[in-house]
């Protein structure tokens, strides 16, 4: 009987929610209880004030594109995009009015525009050495 592969996040602590239901997955952030600043992922301290009283929060799905660029050449090192390189967007996505997340953009590059509404999206990127599905994220056009 075929078994469903186990799923793991591309980085531990980056994604909140069960990876078996990708539509319910959210980005995870760490909010400082002292200064209120939020940073991406699960962190044990606050890089703003150094405080260690922090809590994990999951970010809203919708965001606004603060700025972006189009990567026109294959990135160096262990890039896991399509074998045949296609230019793609990356940008800073503002979420919940508190954080701007550096993220890949899976929209058509011609459609990218500062101020556009984008939506969080998680997807299987690859299978790792242990046979697990590695889950990554991006933002796509549309609120």
């Amino acid at each position, binding site marked *: 009987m075929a078994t469903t592969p186990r799923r793991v996040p*591309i*980085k531990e602590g*980056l994604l909140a929610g069960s990876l078996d239901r990708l539509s319910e997955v959210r980005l995870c*952030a760490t909010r400082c209880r002292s200064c*209120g*600043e*939020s*940073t*991406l*992922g699960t962190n044990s301290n606050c*890089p*703003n004030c150094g405080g260690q009283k922090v809590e994990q929060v999951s970010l809203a799905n919708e965001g606004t594109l*603060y*700025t*972006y*660029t*189009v*990567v*026109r*050449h294959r*990135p*160096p*090192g*262990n*890039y*896991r*995009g399509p074998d045949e390189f296609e230019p*793609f967007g*990356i*940008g*800073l996505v*503002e*979420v919940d*009015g*508190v*954080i*701007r*997340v*550096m*993220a*890949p953009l899976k929209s058509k590059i011609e459609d990218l525009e*500062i101020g556009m509404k984008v939506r969080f999206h998680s997807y299987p*990127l690859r299978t790792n050495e242990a046979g697990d599905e590695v889950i*990554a994220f*991006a933002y796509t056009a549309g609120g």
Partner: protein
Amino acid sequence: MEDVYVIGRGMHPFGRFDKSSEQIGAEAARLALTDAGISWGDVQSAFMARMYLPATSGPRILRNLGGTDISIIDVEAACASGGAALRQAVLAIKAGDVELALVCGTEKMPRGFMDPSMIYSPWQVELGMSQNPAYWSMRAMRHMHEYGTTEQQIAKVAFKNHRNSVHNENAMYRKEFSIDQIMSSPLVCDPIRLLEICSPNDGAAAVVVASGKKMRQLGAHGIRIAGVCHSISRYSSDFRCPADSMSATLENVGPTRVTAERVYEAAGLGVGDIDCFEVQDTDAFCEIEIYEDLGLCPVGEGGPLIDSGEVEIGGRTPVNMSGGLISKGEPVGASHLGQVVELVDQLRGRCGARQVENARVGLAHVLGAGGNCAITILQR
């Protein structure tokens, strides 16, 4: 406290060479010693700025000048390594620990995009968020959106710097390009194009620094180091690289502005007292932002400043007379000391066709990974 002076300067051209880092670095150091009229045995302490070379590069490079038992240490602060190393030498002299020191920056780097594993997390590399120019470009896009800065203004910076480089024998590219050629060169990351970006390469630059007392004993005529400061970016103040998220609520002041304020205060000088500038043009847009952060113009008016012609040689505040990193390339450990060499030559009036008339005060600025920023002000 004791003033510190640059009494000798040496440079190995920036470019790509079939030579070891030991040869390149030792050559620059030797030229600096000769220019100062001293020998290696006179040096009391040495600092080697480098980022990509392996540990203990300082002793490996400098022992080519002869055996020694002085303190030689490597200094690394990304693109600001040279400034951080110079600062250590100045502090050692001001503290009275030594009277004369050698500061050398050396680098030998592969072509193309820098090795991303040095500054990015593995997951950022997998998702392709690992090209330094992408981060610079996102700053440019936001600046264009907020202030109306244009692609043509960005191209003008590259045009100016390439044109200045024609007169610099130490630059890697010494070719003039038209605005059209620049604007039709391939996009690297929108809106930044190939002819608007600097390349990592090989090179070395060195200075001999001494206390005023030592300088007078030697009968040398030095250029005074009016200030040298180094800082890293405040929390969430700069998304140059690497960054995975930024604050949407805090507007912290960026590293160039912080370092500039610090060095102006240390030097007792303002931006209006400075005759010429060498700044970090890793990409052409970056230079526009630096005009604003150094106080050459108000925020948002960097584009009009390049249009005005005031940053050209012959203008009121010339920037990157050497051709900048866009033309010279960026051997990271050597880049700031290369700027310092240019300023020393400018203040000595030895720059020939790229000479700024009657230059008395010059400022050198670098900025890179981790928000590492260094600024040195030199005064004749």
